[in-house]
């Protein structure tokens, strides 16, 4: 039993950290944020070339054949760098297709980075439980016909492939299609975190061919649940990387900023905020890496572990962000300081895949009814 990254995982961590330190500076993130899609082709292919889009997926579908822990390592480093671009949408779509129908022609382009993906899941009602999916798919010519709106879809504006989660008479259906399919309209919804954009996706009588039906019914629901666990893990790890950046930045500032003739880090009120940030960050780390391990190694406890990790780190990440700004004082509240990037990304990640209140409710159902 070893609760630490293995040697190869430490190497992976280092190469991801080095890559983003070199190619994903805050300056570049800010330039990309100001664009409609926050996308940079070279930054994207740098990640795709490493195989990280399918790091946790089987080699037979173009993945690296590693695990969820390795995915978490990469996602953590992305969070530390505020990596812009459609990583989450693509990884979620690839995982969902791999779980639902690994023979689908849409899968391999996503794992290799040749294509970018998005999962159209939430609807205007915006509940994270699958019961909230109401968008109707009506059987038509072996495939389905789709009409309705999906909202809060991460990365859809860049996507080549959209996977739509829809409701049929036989339960949920997972339907993959090119984003350019006739009747699909993608509209950006301006939001807090400009490093990862959100979109509405409208389906106006869209025809989905039989080939593009990944899965229907129980199998679709199982695949969806598993893919959400993987994407929730990646989101939590992204928050962890952000926390790591924020505590390092706040402690560094506290060591240099002087008031009353002393560095502010010598005052206990400031020290105690920093100590709390470390406790919150390290406790998140324990919860997140356990969840990553459980996803692959202990499926029976994966749902609890993921909800524990997301609930804890959602609250922790917000608290770390608040303390980091407070330690900085006025400068931490400016547009000019890079903290604002992390402050916003942390809030967006807290919401994504359910905040602590949502996951506590999940845990109550999982643990107390057992």
């Amino acid at each position, binding site marked *: 039993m070893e609760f630490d990254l*293995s040697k190869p995982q430490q190497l992976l961590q280092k190469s991801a950290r080095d890559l983003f330190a070199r190619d994903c500076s805050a300056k570049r993130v800010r330039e990309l944020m100001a664009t409609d899609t926050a996308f940079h082709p070279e930054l994207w292919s740098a990640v795709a070339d490493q195989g990280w889009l399918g790091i946790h997926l089987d080699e037979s579908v173009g993945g690296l054949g590693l695990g969820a822990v390795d995915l978490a390592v990469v996602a953590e480093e992305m969070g530390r760098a505020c990596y812009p671009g459609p990583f989450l949408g693509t990884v979620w779509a690839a995982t969902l297709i791999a779980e639902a129908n690994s023979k689908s022609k849409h899968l391999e382009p996503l794992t290799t980075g040749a294509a970018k993906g998005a999962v159209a899941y939430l609807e205007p009602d915006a509940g994270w439980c699958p019961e909230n999916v109401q968008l109707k798919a009506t059987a038509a010519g072996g495939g389905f016909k789709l009409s309705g709106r999906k909202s809060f879809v991460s990365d859809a504006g860049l996507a080549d492939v959209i996977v739509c989660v829809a409701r049929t008479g036989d339960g949920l259906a997972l339907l993959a299609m090119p984003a350019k399919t006739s009747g699909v309209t993608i509209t950006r919804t301006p939001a807090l975190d400009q490093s990862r954009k959100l979109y509405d996706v409208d389906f106006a009588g869209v025809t989905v061919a039989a080939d593009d039906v990944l899965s229907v019914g129980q199998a679709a629901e199982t695949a969806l649940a598993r893919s959400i666990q993987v994407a929730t893990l990646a989101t939590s790890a992204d928050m962890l990387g952000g926390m790591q950046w924020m505590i390092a930045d706040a402690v560094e500032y506290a060591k240099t900023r002087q008031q009353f003739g002393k560095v502010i880090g*010598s005052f206990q009120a400031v020290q105690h905020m920093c100590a709390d940030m470390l*406790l919150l960050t390290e406790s998140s780390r324990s*919860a997140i890496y356990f969840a990553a391990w459980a996803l692959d190694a202990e499926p029976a406890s994966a749902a609890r572990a993921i909800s524990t990790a997301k609930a804890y780190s959602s609250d922790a990440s917000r608290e770390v962000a608040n303390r980091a700004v407070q330690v900085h004082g006025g400068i931490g509240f400016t547009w000019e300081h890079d903290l604002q990037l992390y402050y916003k990304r942390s809030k967006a990640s807290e919401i994504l895949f359910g905040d602590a209140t949502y996951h506590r*409710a999940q845990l109550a159902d999982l643990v*107390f009814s057992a």
Partner: protein
Amino acid sequence: MDLGLTPSETKFRDELRAWLKTNLPAKKVKTAESGTEYFDYLKNWQRKLFEGNYAGVSWPKEFGGRGASFMEQAIFQEELALADAPERMGTIGQGLVGPTIITVGTEEQKKRYLPAILSGEEVWCQGFSEPNAGSDLASLETKGIREGDDFVVNGQKIWTSYAHIADQCMLVVRTDMTAAKHKGMTCLLVDMKSPGITVRPLKMMSGDSGFNEMFFSNLRVPAKNVLGKVNEGWNVAITALSNERANLGTGLYVVFKRNLDAVLEHARKLRRNGKPVIEDPVIRQKLAQSYLDLEVFRLNTTRSLSNLNKTGVPGPEGSIQKLYWSELNQRNAQVAMEVLGPYAQLTNFDDGRWVYNYLRSRGNTIEAGTSEVQRNIIAQRVLGLPRSY
């Protein structure tokens, strides 16, 4: 990253499970820190653990331990929690004094003291705090003056848990009055039956007498009972406190888990507003937070033991653990009160368990270093911020 068990860890766990099946005490005696019936119950359990070679899982074999790894120690704690085993007796001896003797003690001291700690024959207390030396431990004033082969001790200690039942005491005294305050201290191992010691119990707000005042009047301690070196007692005390922070939490998981399970049981049975309390969505949120906080505590503990397995030495990051469990226990004691509603305040409901837990947990953020001192340690010794005093 591999939390799966190795073949030898699996073997350890399976043997432990089988052992627990036949050796767990059938009858449960309720918690009450000063009660002698409870004390005997824990003492018998400790004896059983010792006989089964489970008393000191990660301690060296030659001193009565099992010589296993810290990961096996972690497995041991989790299995005890799963089996709803009694809590451990003698946390000061096992968690704090023993590991310090292993680190800095002489061979003779190791032979003399360690096996008796594990078997439960000797209970230890820790003479650190004084009326004028609490968080600022290094300003302690109790004197130890060398006279021939002895140190003659005069002064007073306070907040000494278990002094009223202890057989031995790890005592820190000032032996060089002229040196800087961190430099002139010495750590002594003291037989509590020696003449010159008066113990006066202090009542906690819970009504129990778990801690005490100790007065020393010409107490003679043989020089061979110096732990570590003369005038280097500060480092010995820090070693002891680091071990305390690293070890205390591991045993507490068992206690906290049992409390949460009992609260859940009540939440299922108690009815309020025409339905079981556990169906109240606000209570569910709070209980889920209790559950996940405790789960994170378990994972933090496993992670720190995994780290200890590599480094061998508990570091200042143990303060994170202390800070975490003390505040967690206070939050969870509060949630228990909310679940139970008006019943929570009855001292004859569940033998007063919930009143006791609530009041006793209030002390958690003060004992073994206040939360403020833990945050100072984290800020200064882990994050590298400058000293504030």
